[in-house]
């Protein structure tokens, strides 16, 4: 009998330790790592004129149905953008831009669902020299 009882106590102690440790692990918040591998215009590009659309390539296939893009203006509310997939390249998304973009930096926020079910959130910035 004795070994069984001590084993049970040991098991409980271990369980408590494990739960504490397990929750402790979760404390360190991990920053989501961008998985955008390329874009057109590219990140931080300085453009002569405002582009009509943005093309983005991710390092794995993404789901256009759950892709959200928006402009983060310096002030005021966010402006939603529409995105569509590219039938020939499942890693690519094409985002249509409004045609009244002002000169200066443009911040695009986005949120995409990749094929392994993970959500990626990041932003892309470029600068327009002359307004459209």
């Amino acid at each position, binding site marked *: 009998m004795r070994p069984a009882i001590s084993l049970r106590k040991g098991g409980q102690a271990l369980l408590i330790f494990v739960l504490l440790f397990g929750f402790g692990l979760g404390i360190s918040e991990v920053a989501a790592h961008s998985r955008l591998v390329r874009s057109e215009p590219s990140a931080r590009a*300085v453009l002569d004129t405002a582009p009509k659309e943005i093309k983005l390539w991710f390092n794995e296939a993404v789901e256009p149905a759950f892709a959200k893009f928006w402009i983060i203006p310096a002030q005021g509310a966010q402006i939603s953008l529409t995105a569509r997939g590219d039938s020939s390249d499942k890693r690519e998304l094409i985002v249509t831009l409004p045609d009244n973009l002002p000169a200066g930096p443009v911040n695009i926020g986005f949120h995409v669902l990749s094929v392994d079910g993970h959500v990626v959130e990041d932003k892309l910035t470029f600068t327009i020299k002359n307004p459209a």
Partner: protein
Amino acid sequence: MIDPFAVVRAFGTLGAATTVGTGALVWYTRDALVPAGGAIWRRRVVLAVLVASIVSAIATVAGVIGAAAAAAQVGVFAVDGSIVETFLFKTGVGHIEIVEIGLAAAACVPAAIAWVMLKNTQVSDVALLAAALISAANLATVPFASHPVTLDAQIAGILSAIAHRLALSLWLGGLPALILLIGAGPVPDDTRRVAALVLRRFSQVATVAMGIILLTGALLTWFLVGNFPGLIGTEYGRLLILKLAFLGGVLFIASGLQRHLLPLLELKPSDPTFLSYANRVKLETVFAVLIVVIASDMAGLAPPEHENIVWPLPFRFSFAATWAIPWVPTRFIGGIALSLAGLGVLAISLVPQLRPAWFRLPKNVSLGAGAIAAIAGGGLAFPAISVQAYPDTYLTTDIPYAARSIAAGLKHYEDNCTGCHGTSGHGDGPLAASLPIKPADLSAPHTALHTAGDLYWWVTHGIENSPMPAFGDTLTDDERWDIINFLGAYSVGYQARIIEPRVQPGQYWLAPPDVELTDENGKTVLLTDYRQKSAILLMLFSCTQENIAQETARFNQLMAARERLAAAGTRIALIAPGSLCEPLRSAAAGKILVVDHDIADAAATFGLFTRSVHNRQQTVVRVPDTHAEFLIDRSGYIRARWLPAEDDTWSDPGFIMAQLDILNREPPAPPPPGPHDH
């Protein structure tokens, strides 16, 4: 914190795993369940499978709602039918989830039949087997909507994950059945023989499953984590270590059961033995549940490949950074030898069979001596190869090693760093003389000694006990990475002094920075897009009033040689900054690859690669504009370079063709590593 939906997903997996493991165990032992005790167990187990399959189906549906909520970025209770519908029918993950829900629900049907037809054991057994097979198919579906899909070795990854999940189910999913057999109160006399037999059969299944789990687990770890820093420096990796610790616990318990308690039970099935056995199986089950919960939580995280590594130790081991230091090889090899000798002494002290006849030291003395030698050896060897490390040591960036970043970094360097490190970069700025420690000479080859993350840490936080200040508050994250990209290009540019107009066969080591180009059809492309496709003759022009005629003539000469170069698998790319070069850019547009925006950045970046043995340009970081041409091979390495100021070799296009001939005869080289890889 463990994600609540990880627990929901874990229930889906645990339910299906119980159906698989328990159903398979009953099928495997069905011939032995004839005595009365067997019938009681069968009744309990079939009920358990029915409950498990229903729990699994409910948890699968709940998990899908959670996944749809996460995808649409709304709260779980704000999910409506349209979101779930879009998720299920418009996404690849959703299609897999439909199959999962279908299989989870389908498994409930034969499980119910097995329960209803319990009296007819033949029908009941077949129904139970069907439930197990359907649940197995369900478990095998999950990897198609998870990490393995995104791997380079996609098929190997998915197959490993399927084998891993099925083996784990056969083993851990059978544990609840064992608890129902021997852990639900005293084992009646008529059940003892049956119990011993079922335990023996389960032990056989578990041994095979264990082998598969370890093999596929090792493969998946290799695929998804890849390296040691990823293992201890990311949440995913630490969860994996925790999971392995539990698996180790399960293995330890299982091997004890198999080697000691099971033979004892078969010899004399007494109550204390059964009780002890049952308690251990219960503990094993708790571990199994935790393993599945952890695995489900890991499935919701990005694997280390996509995550920032935070190195938890103040040191790291590096042969590359230490091996050239005097005495390090001696200390390391000597220390390891001493340590091994100590371990050998320990082994022959502890295991009498290994002890040679001449070994007569008393056991205490030999144990002490062995332990001291083993520890001292380690103490000698490991500090010798350890170097200081920081939380950011293995941090990398998504900002590409490309002209825009390098040119920006050069600018930030000029604005912030020249006071101490000098306009030369050699650590001889005006403030350097008054500093207690000489600023670093940044032109020295440093990449073997420090990771990009080390440099990032120093630029961000300064260097302790040195005058190097912190720039974390004055420069943005991107700007600091720009400086590190610049430092990489600047330092390797100094090593590139020795690149000659002639190709040195087999000497590939210098990867050019990336740059955006416009191709013949007006499409934006990257220099790296041409890797494995074609060699590139990259022309860097420098137009002044005095040399414009000469530059134009050279341009026309190469444009005329375009067809010959194309026949040898080579494209021409042009970097021609400034308004005087504008006619060249216009003439090139639509015919060759042209850098047509941020041209000055591209010129400044490739300017870093124009130092030569004769002209080191060592008083300046930013090299004055000059004409240079680079031959980049198909694998993506700079293999030859022409500086017209030094010789006239390439003024004959035939000379260039001869270099291409050498390159075209070479076997392909491995792709260039990242600038900061080690």
